[in-house]
């Protein structure tokens, strides 16, 4: 055999031997274990920690909210629509803060810092699913948010855990005012709202026993010019937010009992109409949320004035304005009488 061929064969063998040696030392031991890949990597990929934990995980600490949700329309297994906790609240499990990704709704981890993040801007969150979009299936409940809610947050009327119920379980959390401080500032109010916050025949509404958050909110609206009244606007102009909370706390703490007027009992027809009001103002006129006013024990004249103002458009509210349009003057009188006679608190 010629020398150059022998050399070639030797080179082949040498290369082969070198390749095999290199393979022996450098190949991962698990490579080819299951195929042309590193077998250990299967276990490594499977080892990652899940971050989305499921509703049972949330239930263990948040049972009341879970119960509320599980009965509501956001848990409709029959139509296949189940909005689980983590859809809005973000993942329950920890995640690497170094990854650079922060969940829009939740921010930091839960429960690592034992703080469940509640989405604050529901006007941004809820339309993710409920904004009217061309491509959305017709079966999905959809709204044009500006027409449906004005500038209000969704949670003002809807309980996000069970949105069909018009009950906001999440209400603006105000600092509790100081009733004693409120009393010292209330002197100017008493002329119209009564010495103990009960307006018997006086021009202002009864304030005794009213929701403190509602009172403070309305004072803020007068100050900001969102609601107009020739007496109230200048009154509220000089009040600080703290003053408003103090006044709210003072009047809400007063006794609101009035003797029911036996001559003014509501008919069955009026009770049916009042059922609509009950969605927000409560079956007995005691509101279901701190965002809305109690009607029980309110001055009858004031209630009639307010309903007429809504109907005439002098006062506007996204819920009340359309409702008042359907009421006749007689309905208003009867409804007002019904609530004026209801037992407050």
């Amino acid at each position, binding site marked *: *055999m010629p020398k150059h*061929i022998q050399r*070639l*064969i030797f080179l*082949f*063998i040498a290369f*082969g031997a070198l*390749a*095999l040696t290199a393979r022996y030392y450098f*190949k991962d031991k698990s*490579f*080819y*274990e*299951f*195929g*042309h*890949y*590193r*077998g*250990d*990597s*299967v*276990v490594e*990929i*499977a*080892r*990652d*920690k*899940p*971050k*989305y934990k*499921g509703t049972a995980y949330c239930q263990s600490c948040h049972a009341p909210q879970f119960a509320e949700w599980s009965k509501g329309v*956001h848990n409709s297994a029959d139509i*296949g*629509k*189940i*909005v*689980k906790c*983590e*859809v809005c609240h*973000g*993942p329950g499990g920890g*995640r*690497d803060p170094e*990854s*650079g*990704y*922060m*969940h*829009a709704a939740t921010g930091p981890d839960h429960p690592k810092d034992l703080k469940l993040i509640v989405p604050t801007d529901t006007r941004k969150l809820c339309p*993710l*699913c409920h*904004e*009217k*979009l*061309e*491509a*959305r*299936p017709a079966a*999905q409940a959809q709204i044009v948010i500006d027409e449906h809610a004005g500038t209000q947050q969704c949670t003002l009327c809807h309980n996000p855990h069970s949105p069909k119920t018009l009950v906001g379980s999440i209400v603006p959390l105000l600092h509790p005012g100081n009733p004693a401080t409120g009393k010292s500032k209330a002197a100017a109010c008493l002329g119209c709202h009564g010495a103990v916050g009960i307006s018997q025949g006086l021009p202002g509404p009864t304030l005794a026993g009213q929701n403190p958050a509602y009172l403070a909110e309305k004072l803020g609206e007068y100050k900001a010019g969102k609601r107009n009244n020739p007496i109230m606007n200048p009154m509220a102009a000089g009040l600080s937010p703290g003053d408003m909370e103090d006044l709210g706390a003072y009047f809400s703490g007063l006794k609101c009992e009035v003797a029911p007027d036996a001559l003014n009992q509501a008919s069955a027809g009026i009770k049916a109409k009042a059922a609509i009001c009950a969605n927000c103002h409560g079956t007995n006129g005691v509101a279901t949320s701190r965002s809305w006013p109690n009607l029980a024990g309110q001055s009858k004249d004031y209630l009639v004035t307010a309903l007429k103002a809504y109907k005439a458009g002098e006062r506007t509210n996204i819920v009340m304005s359309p409702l008042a349009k359907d009421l006749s003057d007689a309905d208003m009188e009867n409804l007002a009488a019904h609530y004026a006679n209801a037992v407050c608190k």
Partner: protein
Amino acid sequence: MDEKKDLDKGQCGRRDFLSRLGCAVAGGATALAAGVALAPEGQAAVAAKPNAPKIPGYDWGNHHYAFGVDATKCIGCLRCVEACKTENEVAGDAHHFRTWVERYAHVEGEDKVRIDSQADPVNIAASDSEGQYRFANRYKDVKVDKAFFVPKLCNHCTHPACVQVCPTGATYKTKDGFVVIDHTYCIGCQYCVQACPYGARFFNPVTRVTDKCTWCYHRVTKGLQPACVEVCPVGARIFGDLNDKQSSISQFVANNRVAVLKPETGNAPNVFYVGIDKDVE
């Protein structure tokens, strides 16, 4: 003829050359054979080892997973996209996604369908930030004949082109049906990114390797649903085991006229769609 004889005498003739070539090939083959003989050393050792990865409480031999997408249900809320980003720690921008949602809109008077995803600049602008996703209400002023959302993700194909082209064995198909990447073996050559007909793979700028949907292998092997399926509020995403005839995916495939994307590529996808039209590929 004389010339040829001279040639035969002085140099290597054809017959001679072939016979010697034969010897060389035989020699080479012997060397190769030695190599092959040594290679099965690995395989012989496998026989002694357990034939499945040691994943606690999970045997990959018992499962055959598949994914279903019901486009008639999808509302385009993009919770799946955000959940996937969080669960898998994908770069928090609006340009790299393991799963995404496309919107198809047939506008009146236009032949071509309009397609956008959450990565479209208009939709990024609507969401206020690159870390949050939302579809802008961009077709409110035109007449739309038909529009729908289509969630997209890796098809975990039965004959994946991406696996075939990988030069390092970094990407592979597991026995239970997942196409995954061994990030420690990936060299970031992106050959697989080009090979995938569905655009399901991308180069992760943070880790400097290729990234893709794993159908949340780390969740599925623990008995959980993939993160996108877990958060889908309308049940538009279905995941399960085809070996279990009662599973939701088996029912979905059995009871619907399902379609796969680009069947002509021969990849044999395992994501089954309902409610899409010819423009979706």
